[in-house]
Structures are given as C-alpha cells and as structure tokens.
C-alpha cells in the first residue's frame, strides 16, 4: 500500500507551488449541454481587437464549448448595425471590446446605445483584491451594481440660448426598482451580507429621493440582508480610507461610473476587474469599468494591452452559459499568472505584450 501511494505523494509534493487542485464541480448537466454555444463577438476599437483575440485564443486552448460570431462595429458608426443586434438577440450572449466615443462630437456613445437597445439595465463590476496586484488597500471585495439605462446618461441635452446648455437627468421608479431588485437578488444568490445605496439626495431631493425610496422598498423584502445609504462624496472618501466596509453597492448611472472606477482603482486597476451588462433577456460582457476606454495609440502599436479584465469577464460569461468548470479553470490560470508576477503589462509597470500574457495563461490552464 505504501508503494502504491508513493507516486501520488511525489506528484502532490511537486505541485506545492500551485494551489491545491481540490475543487470539485458537482452539478449534473443535461444531455446536450456540451453543445457549443454561439456567442456574438464585437472586437471594437483600439485595444478591443487585441484583447478579444486574447479571449479567443484562450477559449480555443481550453476547447471551451463556445464559438464566436464576429462582427465589426466601430465607434464612429452612427447607429449599431441591425445585423449585430439581431445576432445578439439570437445568441443572448455577447462579448465586446470597447467602442470609441469621440469627445464632444456629434455621435453619441454606441456603448450606451447598445445597453439601451437591449435594455441591459444592470451593469455589474466585481472589484476584488487579487494576490500579486500592487495595492494600498486590503480586504477589498466590492460589487458595484449600476443602473445602466437612465439617469444622467439619458442623452437629453439642448441649448436653451447661446451659452446656456441644459441636460436632463431622468430617474423613474420603474428603473430604480428593478435595479434595486437586481442588487438584492445578487446579494442573496451570492451570500453577500450588505447592500449600500449611493446617492446625493440631500441636494437632488426628488431624483435621488425617488431612487432611495425604491431601494428602501426592495430592502424590506430582503430582511436578511443589511441595507444602508451613503452620500456619494462621503462614499468616495470612505472608499479610499476604509473600503472593507462596502459589500454590494447599488447606484444610479453616473455615480455608479465614478464609484466603480474608484473601487476598481483601489482593488488594483481597471485593467483587472471583470464585469458586464445584463438585462432580462440578454447579457453583454465587457471590461468591468472604463469599458469605453480603448487605450492609446502607443499601447495599440506595441500590442501591450492588458487582457486580464476581458479574460475574467469571459470566465463570468462561461458561468453565465452554465459551463462552471471551464470558468473555474480560466480564473485559476489567470490568478496564477498575476500572482507569479512575471508577465506584467504596462499598467502594472511591466513591459509584457498581450501575447505574452495569453501564452502564460494558456500554459497555466490545468
């Protein structure tokens, strides 16, 4: 018996550098669940094609049961091409790189367009410390749930008289209620203990007041989950001093953008946080925060974009498609690459190319 277990012992000892492979996925798939699923892929602009290509390579290496229908969309198009929207409606899931939005130009953001078109009313980003990332704050584990369709991004602006411009911020009970519902449901499903609503209702009494009212109503239906409210400026101050007090945060559109970016920054950077947009029928996965940030020319030319955020978002997508084992393997591989710290892209002060990171991830997949 000792002789039979010796090779096992040696094998286990030689793997002490890697985390224990004791994860077991216990679920019973239905026959036919392994059929490859179609996912719409939009490479996008700037670093988009680079990082979506990274995802394609990794999926290929894992033999994951997904295949991509690629569509070219660029930020300077006036409207989202109908065939792309058709494809997403058919496949229900999409993976997307960023689309450039010209600043102050006449074209409104296509990223925002898509969210409204498909009614992807919740944007989710998971900001968590990962071993290997240089950080100042410990114990960061925040999920920001952001209302994605209305608020300040309603896009309703006009010039009243020359030199005076108005922008409408619209808050409705319907949207506030459903985002609050999503946030609490997420907390419930993921064993999260607290939901914090972020607002500025002391100044915008009616608008944010309505948002808070909806959150409070939903909170009553989830008595096991703690609920509190915080004003957005205090929230940012607390995020940089004591981020461990936050768990799930639910916010209207604009504050969500700021809070998510701040939380991503303190957890290690927007290049690492997974996230996406989800609605009742469709899900679009993209870089968690700053999805519209398509990098600068230098990074594109040198091919040194950071693919980690999109890789982790694609892991989220695999779970969404009910392929948990592939998702786990991908996340573990990425985690190992970051923890090792040998392949650092520009945003971490290193010099690796996207391809080097991809190769490292593929090498680390069990």
């Amino acid at each position, binding site marked *: 018996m000792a002789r039979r277990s010796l090779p096992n012992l040696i094998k286990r000892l030689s793997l002490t550098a890697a985390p224990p492979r004791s994860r077991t996925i216990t679920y019973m798939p239905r026959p036919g669940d392994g059929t490859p699923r179609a996912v719409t892929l939009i490479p996008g602009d700037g670093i988009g094609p680079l990082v979506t290509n990274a995802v394609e390579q990794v999926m290929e290496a894992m033999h994951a049961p997904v295949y991509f229908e690629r569509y070219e969309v660029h930020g300077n198009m006036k409207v989202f091409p109908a065939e792309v929207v058709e494809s997403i409606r058919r496949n229900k899931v999409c993976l997307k790189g960023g689309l450039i939005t010209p600043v102050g130009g006449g074209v409104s953001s296509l990223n925002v367009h898509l969210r409204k078109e498909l009614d992807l009313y919740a944007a989710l980003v998971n900001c968590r410390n990962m071993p290997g990332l240089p950080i100042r704050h410990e114990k960061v584990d925040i999920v920001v749930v952001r209302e994605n369709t209305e608020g300040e991004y309603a896009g309703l602006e006009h010039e009243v008289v020359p030199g005076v411009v108005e922008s409408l911020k619209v808050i409705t009970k319907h949207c506030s209620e459903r985002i609050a519902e999503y946030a609490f449901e997420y907390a419930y499903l993921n064993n999260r203990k607290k939901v914090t609503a972020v607002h500025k209702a002391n100044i915008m009494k009616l608008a944010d007041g309505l948002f808070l009212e909806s959150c409070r109503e939903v909170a009553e239906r989830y008595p096991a989950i703690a609920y509190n409210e915080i004003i957005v400026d205090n929230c940012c101050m607390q995020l940089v001093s004591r981020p461990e007090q936050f768990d799930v945060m639910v916010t209207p559109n*604009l504050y969500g953008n700021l809070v998510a970016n701040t939380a991503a920054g303190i957890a290690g950077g927007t290049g690492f946080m997974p996230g996406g947009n989800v609605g009742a029928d469709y899900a679009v996965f993209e870089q968690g925060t700053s999805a519209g940030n398509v990098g600068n020319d230098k990074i594109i030319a040198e091919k040194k974009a950071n693919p980690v955020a999109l890789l982790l978002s694609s892991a989220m997508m695999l779970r969404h498609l009910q392929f948990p084992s592939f998702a786990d393997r991908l996340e573990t591989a990425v985690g190992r690459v970051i923890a090792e710290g040998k392949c650092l892209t520009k945003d971490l002060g290193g010099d690796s190319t996207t391809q080097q990171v991809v190769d490292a991830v593929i090498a680390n997949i069990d």
Partner: protein
Amino acid sequence: MAFQLLRRALTSRPDQIISSPSAFSAVRAFSSAPITATLFPGDGIGPEIAEAVKQIFREAEVPIEWEEHYVGTEVDPRTQSFLTWESLESVRRNRVGLKGPMATPIGKGHRSLNLTLRKELNLYANVRPCYSLPGYKTLYDDVNLITIRENTEGEYSGLEHQVVRGVVESLKIITRQASLRVAEYAFHYAKAHGRERVSAIHKANIMQKTDGLFLKCCREVAEKYPEITYEEVVIDNCCMMLVKNPALFDVLVMPNLYGDIISDLCAGLIGGLGLTPSCNIGEGGIALAEAVHGSAPDIAGKNLANPTALLLSGVSMLRHLELHDKADRIQNAVLDTIAEGKYRTADLGGKSTTSDFTKAICDHL
C-alpha cells in the same frame, strides 16, 4: 468691466489696491495697516477652534483684525436665513472671511446657511488644496494637488420636478459665463502659485453639449496661458488615476457635481475633512475660507477639537491676500507640529487638548 475697475480704483482705500489684470486678489502692497476680516466662529467646536486660530495669528503677528459674527437665533427676513444682513455686508466690505463649521438648523422657512452665503456673496469657485501632511501617515504619501470646483450651477441647480408619478427630471445647467469664470480663476490660481498643469475633468463623451461647453470654455482660457499645460481627463479615468497614483495631478478644474465628489475623494486621500482647508472665491475677489468638517457637537466645549482644518483654511486666506511669508510660517508650524507627533489631538491618534496643540504650534512659529 473696465468701467467697474475704474470705479473701484477711484473709490478704493489707499492701502487696498486691486491689481487690474485680475480682479481676483486684493494686493496689500503697502499696507501695514491691519486688514479687517470677517470671522464666523460657527457652532459646536467652532468657537474653540476659532479662538485657536486667533491666538496663532496673533503670535505670528499677522496684520488682521477680526470682525466676529455669529449665526442668529431667528430668521432675518432680508436674507431669509439665520445669517443676518450685517454679517453678509461685513464680508462684502472686508472682502475676506473665515468661517467655522455651521450646523444648519432643521426646519423650513429659511434657506440653508451655506446656500445663503453662496448666493448672496456670489461664491463661484471652491478651492481645496490637498497635500499629504508629513507626519500624518495615510495610505497615500505623495498627494499635492488643488481641486477647483464650480460652485453655482451644474447639477446642483436644484431644478427638479415630477413629470408624472414615478418619473422625475432633474436639470443640469452649464453656462458659458460660469464655466469661463471658474476656468479663468483656475488658470490664474495656477499661475499665481507656480503650478504647471491644469486638468479639466469631464464626461463629455456622454454629456456632449453640457460638458462639451465646459471644455470649450476651458480651452479658450488655456490659450491665454501658454506656459501652463492643459489637459482633459474623463472623470472615470480621473477617479482611477487618483486612487492609484495621485501624484499625476496638479490643478483640477471641474463642474459642480464632479468637483464635489473629487474634492471629497482627495480629502479622503490625505486624511479626511478634519485636515482639509477650503476657500470659496466670489465675484470681485471675495474670499471666504472655511473648514468643511462638521460642528461635532459631541466634543464641543471640551477642548478636544482639532483646529487644523480651520488653520489651514486661514492660511489659504492669507495666500489670497498675498501675505505669503506669514502663510508659509504658519503652515510650516502646523506641519512641523503634526510631524513631530508629540502634540496631536484625538482625531489624529494623539491625546493632546486643543490648547496644547495650539501652544505647540505657537512654539514652532
């Protein structure tokens, strides 16, 4: 504008010359006559920290005479608030003021105190210098930036209404006039304080017309100051960069809402509102420095309060008055005292009383 300058020059007192290229600072070129400044001690810990400030300024021989005004106990019909007309006139006359924390009384029928001050004195820019205090360790050591926030319009115009049940609209207003005004101040400040870079923070990729107008105004002003680098940063990038590497920023100029959030974020980076100075600039060069923390009624009167925020606000007031050497003296004394670590108030982790802390600063002068 020229006529107003002429009128002001003709009616000004001999020891008060307003430099014509900018109507922002009151240059006390040849005054040895004391400058009168309005002081609002405020509520709660206000009076004690105001006393500490007065003591330190006296020790440092700052040529300021304080005119104290308190928040009244009944609503003044002329201002519709608890601040009397006399108080406001005093600030208008003296052009400088220092304000302690004021607790807004709950109830209706009156305007909030901060709103009254802002509207009546036309305070259009809020300036917050944020620098890491050597000796008070936070997670960030290299913060050295100024946030300049437009204070009158933007998202805080207070214009909201219910369209139908369950649908609310809130108006965000951006005007060319207000944006130009705050941009002018930002660049003037940068030049006057030897700052090299001004960053305009915006979300113009989404709010194209409103933030677009703000940016256009900033660009126009930037052209007049070619020696200062000007850049535009989208607010989500700005938040991220601030928490990762705050040394990247120098002077930030922003519309109202972003300014509120970013200035509080920066205050959080250096240790909180109890240590952050703040100064409000009004039309015609009025400067009202204030401590932005609360009135802390629970420790009022117990000699435990930390006067740092009010002191550093007083220092920014002195800089506005161009009394730079006095300002430097007091600022260095405060920073040295905190860095030394022997006398620190409770909120900084020490055990000293307000009076001990004040005395230590006086000794360091």
